[in-house]
């Protein structure tokens, strides 16, 4: 019996040891400290936008006076929230305090990874093409292949850039002190206090512009994105950095800037980049006629080319003639 005892004790010991070695895989950005700006860039409203003609293309009304009951009510909301923050709320503030651009970029990367799956071949050997009008039906829209992902990152980043320029323009113009600077009863919770004016809220501008862009780029995700946008805005309020009015004005500005980019995106030829079977066959014929070996798929069944007309998509920073001039010449290419 002693043997049984020792054996079972040993086995239990091994299991306890194993259980004790808790697995702790965590994201490298999970516990980032709150953003510490080296420069508030208060003149960013004068920088050159990507697409906006002027930083004040979209009007943002002046904030109500700090003596207004509306403003006092906004401050009261923050104080009430800060008195009873739950652990989840604290974690949400800390998460967004690392930087809204960083977090939205991570969310984008997650979506690109989620949708980066090539469609499975149909029974007849063809491949269905994702349909933006029906994004949740298989194959899911979009297929975030490299061209699609590059364009999505570009649009989101450029739209965020312009929206933040406009945001900074109004921040400087109205120069509304952040709640934690205006009212000593409002704390800077888990964020670093700065002198950045809070109207309109940069967190809400980012939330508004990004969520609106995502409606176009990831139409199957808009519900999730909307939730995340609200969380980021709520975190800004709970942290003491922004009032409800700062957030409302910021989100509206962000969405308006997004509309400008969305209008451009609808006409930039990306929707036609997938081409047609006629286009695909034409590529082969033209390439062969030049004495070159055409690209062909090594998959079974053969997969059509991936957004082959993407070269016709309108670039952001140069014109279509520059696109042509940047191409490598075909003289050193693979001849038949």
């Amino acid at each position: 019996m002693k043997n049984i005892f020792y054996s079972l004790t040993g086995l239990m010991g091994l299991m306890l040891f194993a259980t004790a070695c808790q697995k702790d895989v965590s994201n490298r950005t999970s516990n980032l400290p709150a953003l510490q700006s080296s420069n508030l860039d208060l003149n960013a409203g004068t920088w050159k936008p990507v697409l906006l003609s002027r930083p004040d293309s979209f009007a943002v009304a002046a904030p109500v006076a700090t003596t207004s009951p509306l403003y006092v009510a906004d401050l009261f909301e923050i104080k009430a929230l800060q008195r009873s923050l739950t652990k989840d709320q604290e974690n949400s503030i800390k998460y967004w305090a690392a930087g809204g651009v960083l977090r939205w970029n991570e969310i984008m990367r997650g979506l690109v990874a989620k949708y980066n799956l090539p469609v499975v071949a149909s029974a007849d050997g063809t491949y269905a093409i994702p349909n933006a009008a029906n994004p949740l039906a298989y194959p899911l829209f979009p297929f975030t292949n490299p061209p699609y992902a590059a364009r999505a990152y570009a649009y989101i980043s450029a739209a965020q850039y312009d929206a933040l320029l406009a945001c900074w323009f109004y921040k400087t113009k109205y120069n509304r002190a952040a709640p934690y600077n205006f009212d000593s009863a409002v704390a800077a919770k888990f964020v670093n206090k700065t002198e950045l004016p809070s109207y309109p809220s940069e967190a809400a501008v980012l939330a508004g512009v990004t969520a609106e862009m995502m409606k176009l780029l990831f139409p199957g995700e808009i519900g999730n994105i909307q939730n995340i946008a609200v969380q980021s805005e709520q975190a800004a309020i709970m942290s003491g950095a922004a009032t409800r009015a700062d957030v409302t004005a910021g989100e509206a500005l962000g969405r308006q800037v997004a509309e400008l980019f969305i209008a451009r995106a609808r006409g930039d030829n990306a929707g036609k980049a997938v081409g047609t079977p006629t286009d695909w066959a034409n590529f082969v014929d033209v390439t062969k006629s030049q004495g070159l070996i055409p690209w062909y798929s090594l998959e079974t069944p053969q997969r059509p080319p991936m957004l082959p007309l993407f070269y016709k998509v309108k670039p952001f920073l140069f014109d279509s003639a520059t696109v042509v001039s940047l191409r490598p010449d075909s003289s050193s290419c693979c001849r038949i």
Partner: protein
Amino acid sequence: MKKKTLLHFSLAVAFSLVAVMAKSQTADDAIMMGKKQWCNGLTYMYSSWKNYWEGTLKRENLNLGTVSTQSVMFMSTYGITNKLNAIVSVPYIWTHASAGTLHGLKGFQDIEADIKYEFLGTKLGKKGHLLLFVVGGISTPLQNYENDFLPMSIGMGSTNLIGRLTADYQNGIFFATASSAFEWRSDVTIDRTSYYTGDQIHFTNKVDMPNQLNSNLFVGIRKPTLIVQAQLFNMYTFSGADIRRNDMPFVSNQMNMTSVGGHVKYFFPFFPNLAVVADADFTVAGRNVGQSNMYSGGLYYVVSL
């Protein structure tokens, strides 16, 4: 996507093969080497699948064709006492896909060391005999092989702690063995800075590996010179995501499988230190694994020190 499975099966196969005069053993059977007896063996295994389970969806993949895994495993068992054995195994593995563009990989996989202890032997009924064993083991990669290239990878890359309980009942020439092992698996490192699994992106190169339960049931006849058994193996992974539609498998997927098969071990009358073993196992159910058929054969040689 069944490298790990492969090892388990090779272990099961190789270890349950040898018998030898004095008997031999593996981690999951009820056979022990006598004191100062030393058994060494080599087993060759061929396993292949054409269909696999993408989550619960069974499918084929024309860009993989038939994926085969072959291995040669060296196994060594030493009888410290009649009731305490030490077992070490080292497999060399190579993989191949008959279609598509994925290249096979090859190399030494994980070394495994086990201590097997017979802690109870008692009569049960008029002629029956019951044995109970406990096994503690560890396995770890012998080299930094590529673990993030399933299904061509040769292993998962985790270091594992294994605790096993085995019960064996013999009555005349008939016997039954039931065994189950809990396998705690360490995190693994992959050559990417981020990956997507379990409905979210992870910004790290570390992957949390779910633990596993490996169980087997043998039923058959066991004589001093011959063992013939039917066998059932089950691998269950406690968590992990399914392979997404048309995605590659991932190290931490929930890989489950059940196979049925048979095993024969024979000792040459003219050379009783030598045993030959053969196994065949067929996967009948699975999740995120290939529906593999496995065949193996080996030779074991026992010396007394």
